[in-house]
C-alpha cells in the first residue's frame, strides 16, 4: 500500500512541471505585458505616467530578461508559497487571493451539498424505476438545468428574487456588512444571499451527477448477487442499500478529487453576474489585464489542487476497493 502511494505521488511531479510550463506559456503568449496596457490605460484617462516607477517594477520583476529566466524565478518561488506580486492590486498574490478564499469555500461547500442532496435520491429513484414516467421526468428536469446557460439563469433568478422577496442580490452580504469583521449578523446575511448562487451553480452539475448515479447503480442492479439477495428474501430497500448502492459509489469517490479545485475557483461567470466576492472573477480579471503572476500562480494553484485531488481519490479507492489495490492500477 505504501509503495502504491509513493508511486502515485511520484507521478505528480512531472505532471506539475509540465503544467507550470504550459501555464507560463499561456500567460506569456498574449502580446505586450501588464505595464504596456497599464500605461495605455493611464494615458487614456489623462493621468501622468510615472516612468521611473514603471521602469523600476519592470526591472524588479525581470521583464528585461528572457522569459525562461522569469519562468525559473517564478517556479522556484512556488514550492515555498511565494506566488509573486500582483501589479493590479499592488499586493503579494497570497494576500489578494486569501481575502476571497473564505467566501469561495462557503459557496462551493453549500453548492456541493446541494448537488448531492438533489442528485442522490433522484439517481436512485431513476435507477430503480428505469423507463418509468418518474425516471423520464426527473432526468428531463436535470437536463434542463444542464442546458440553460448559467449566467442567464443567474440573471433571471436575480430578477425574480428582487420581484418576490425584495432582496438585492448583488454580492454575498448586505452592503452594510461589507467591511465588517465576521459576526453572527453578517453570517445570517451571507446565508440570505447564498441560496441563489448555490441553486444556479448547483443545477448545472446535478444532471451529470444524476446520470452517473443512475448508470452506475443500474450496472450493479443487473448483477446476479442482487437476484440472489432478492431470492433469499432480503427486503427491497436493504437489498438496494447494503451492496449495490455502496458498490456504485466508486465513481463518486473518484469524483471527489475533481471537487477540490472548484472549492477555490468556483463558478467564474456566475460569480461575475452576481458580483460575488469570490476568487473566480479575480482570476478572470487578472487574465484580462495580463496581471501575469496573479493569473499564473492562481492557475498553478488550481492545477496543484486537481492533482492532489486525483491522488486523494486514487488512494481512497485503493483503500476501499481491494481489486484496485491488488492490480496496482490507477482508477481513472
Amino acid at each position: 500500500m505504501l509503495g502504491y502511494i509513493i508511486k502515485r505521488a511520484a507521478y505528480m511531479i512531472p505532471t506539475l512541471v509540465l503544467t507550470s510550463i504550459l501555464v507560463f506559456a499561456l500567460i506569456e503568449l498574449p502580446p505586450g505585458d501588464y505595464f504596456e496596457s497599464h500605461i495605455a490605460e493611464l494615458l487614456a484617462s489623462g493621468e501622468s505616467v510615472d516612468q521611473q516607477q514603471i521602469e523600476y517594477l519592470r526591472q524588479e520583476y525581470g521583464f528585461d530578461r528572457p522569459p525562461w529566466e522569469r519562468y525559473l524565478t517564478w517556479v522556484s518561488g512556488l514550492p515555498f508559497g511565494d506566488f509573486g506580486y500582483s501589479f493590479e492590486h499592488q499586493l503579494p498574490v497570497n494576500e489578494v487571493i486569501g481575502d476571497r478564499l473564505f467566501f469561495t469555500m462557503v459557496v462551493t461547500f453549500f453548492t456541493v451539498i446541494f448537488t448531492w442532496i438533489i442528485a442522490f435520491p433522484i439517481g436512485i429513484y431513476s435507477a430503480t424505476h428505469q423507463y418509468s414516467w418518474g425516471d423520464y421526468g426527473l432526468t428531463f428536469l436535470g437536463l434542463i438545468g444542464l442546458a440553460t446557460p448559467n449566467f442567464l439563469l443567474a440573471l433571471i433568478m436575480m430578477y425574480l428574487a428582487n420581484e418576490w422577496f425584495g432582496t438585492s442580490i448583488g454580492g454575498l452580504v448586505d452592503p452594510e456588512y461589507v467591511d465588517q469583521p465576521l459576526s453572527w449578523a453578517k453570517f445570517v446575511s451571507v446565508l440570505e444571499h447564498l441560496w441563489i448562487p448555490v441553486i444556479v451553480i448547483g443545477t448545472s452539475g446535478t444532471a451529470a451527477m444524476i446520470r452517473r448515479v443512475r448508470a452506475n447503480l443500474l450496472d450493479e442492479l443487473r448483477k446476479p448477487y442482487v437476484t440472489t439477495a432478492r431470492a433469499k428474501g432480503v427486503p427491497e430497500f436493504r437489498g438496494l442499500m447494503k451492496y449495490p448502492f455502496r458498490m456504485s459509489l466508486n465513481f463518486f469517490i473518484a469524483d471527489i478529487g475533481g471537487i477540490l479545485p472548484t472549492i477555490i475557483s468556483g463558478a467564474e461567470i456566475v460569480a461575475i453576474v452576481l458580483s460575488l466576492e469570490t476568487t473566480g472573477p479575480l482570476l478572470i480579471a487578472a487574465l484580462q489585464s495580463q496581471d501575469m503572476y496573479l493569473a499564473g500562480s492562481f492557475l498553478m494553484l488550481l492545477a496543484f489542487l486537481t492533482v492532489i485531488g486525483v491522488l486523494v481519490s486514487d488512494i481512497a479507492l485503493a483503500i476501499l476497493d481491494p481489486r484496485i489495490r491488488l492490480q496496482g492500477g490507477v482508477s481513472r
Partner: protein
Amino acid sequence: MNVEKTSAIEHYVNEEPFDPRAIETMTPEQEKVFLASQKRLMWWKFKRHRVAVISGLFLAFIYLATLISEVIAPYSLETRNSKFIYAPPQGIHLFHEGEFIGPFVYGYKSKLDLDTLRRIYTEDTSDVQKLRFFCSGDAYRFWGFIKGDFHIMCPAEGGQVFLLGSDRLGRDVFSRMIYGARISLTIGLVGISISFVLGIVIGGLAGYYGGWVDLVAQRMIEVIQSLPAIPLWLALAAIMPVTWSPILVYFGITIILGLIDWTGLARAVRSKLLALREEDYILAARLMGAKPSRIIGNHLVPGFMSHLIASATITIPTMILGETALSFLGLGLRSPIVSWGVLLNEAQNINVVALYPWLILPVVPVILVILAFNFFGDGLRDAADPYG
C-alpha cells in the same frame, strides 16, 4: 410409487415425424435478428429510443434550416428600424372584427414616456398589416455570394413584423436568432471534428504503442484536464489578436474549444484499444500474419468507432455552451458575426431582464438544441452496443 396414478394418464405419441434439430432451428423472426448485420441491429436498437429519434429529426431539421437562413428570416441581419427600438413581440392574429383575413399583425403606435424616457408601444387595432408569404423583401447575399430578396415570410408593405420583438437598434430578434443558428450550430461541429481527430490520433498512439508514448500522452492529458476550462479558454482567447477579422476569430474559437476538449476522447480511445487488443479475434488475426495497419484499421477501429461517435455527440453541447459563455464575457465572437451567445450578450444586466425580457429569448433554441443533442447522444450510445 403412485403407479396407479401415472398409469391413469393415457399413453401419448406425437404423430409428426421427429426432427432432431427442432431446438436449433429458429423462427423466421429469430432468424432475421440472427442474420442481421451490425449496422441493422444498431438501427433497430436506436429506433426503440423514441426520444432519441425525435431529437435526431429535430436536429436534422434545424441543421437543414441553417442552409437557408436568409430565406427563412423575414429581415436581413442588419436591418434597422429606428422607429421601433425595443419593440415587444407582436402577436399573429387571424380574425379582425370577426372577419377572417389570414395571418396579420396590428401595427404599433409608439409614445415616449417622458418620465422614464422609454418608448411605450400600443397595438393600433385599426391598422391591419397582412403578412406576405413567398415574397420579395430585404435584399441579402445568399451565403455571402448570390444576391437575392426572396423570403418565406415578409411584413406588409410599409409595415413591420417583430415576432420576438426588436433590440436596441430596432433589429428583429427573430431574424437574428435564425442567422445566429448558423454560427452556433456549426461551431460545435467544427470543434468536435478537431477534437475527434486529435483524440483518435493521440489516444490511438498511446493505446497501441504503450510504453513511453503512452506515458507522455497520459501526462499531457492530465495536465490539460487539471486546468479549469473557463480560465483556459480565456487565456487562449486573449492570445488572439484583436486585429483578426471576425471569420478568423470564429475559427480561432472553434480551435480553442477543440484543443481543450480532446482529452476525454483520447482517454476513451486509449482504454478501448487496450481492452480490444487482448481480444481473441485480434490474437487470431495476428497469428494469421495480419500487419499492424490492418489490425488497427480493419479490426480495432470499427470496434470502438460507434462508441466514439456517441460520446462525441454528447460533448457538442459543451461546445455550444462554451461559445455562449465566451461571447458573454466579450471574448468570443463579435459582430457582425451573430451567434446565440452574441445575442445573449445583449441581455447582460438585470435591467434588460426586467424591461425587455424578449431579449433573452435566444436562450430557448440553446436549451432545445442542447437537450436534443443529449437525447440523441443517449440513443446513439445505447445503439453503439447492439448486443448488450
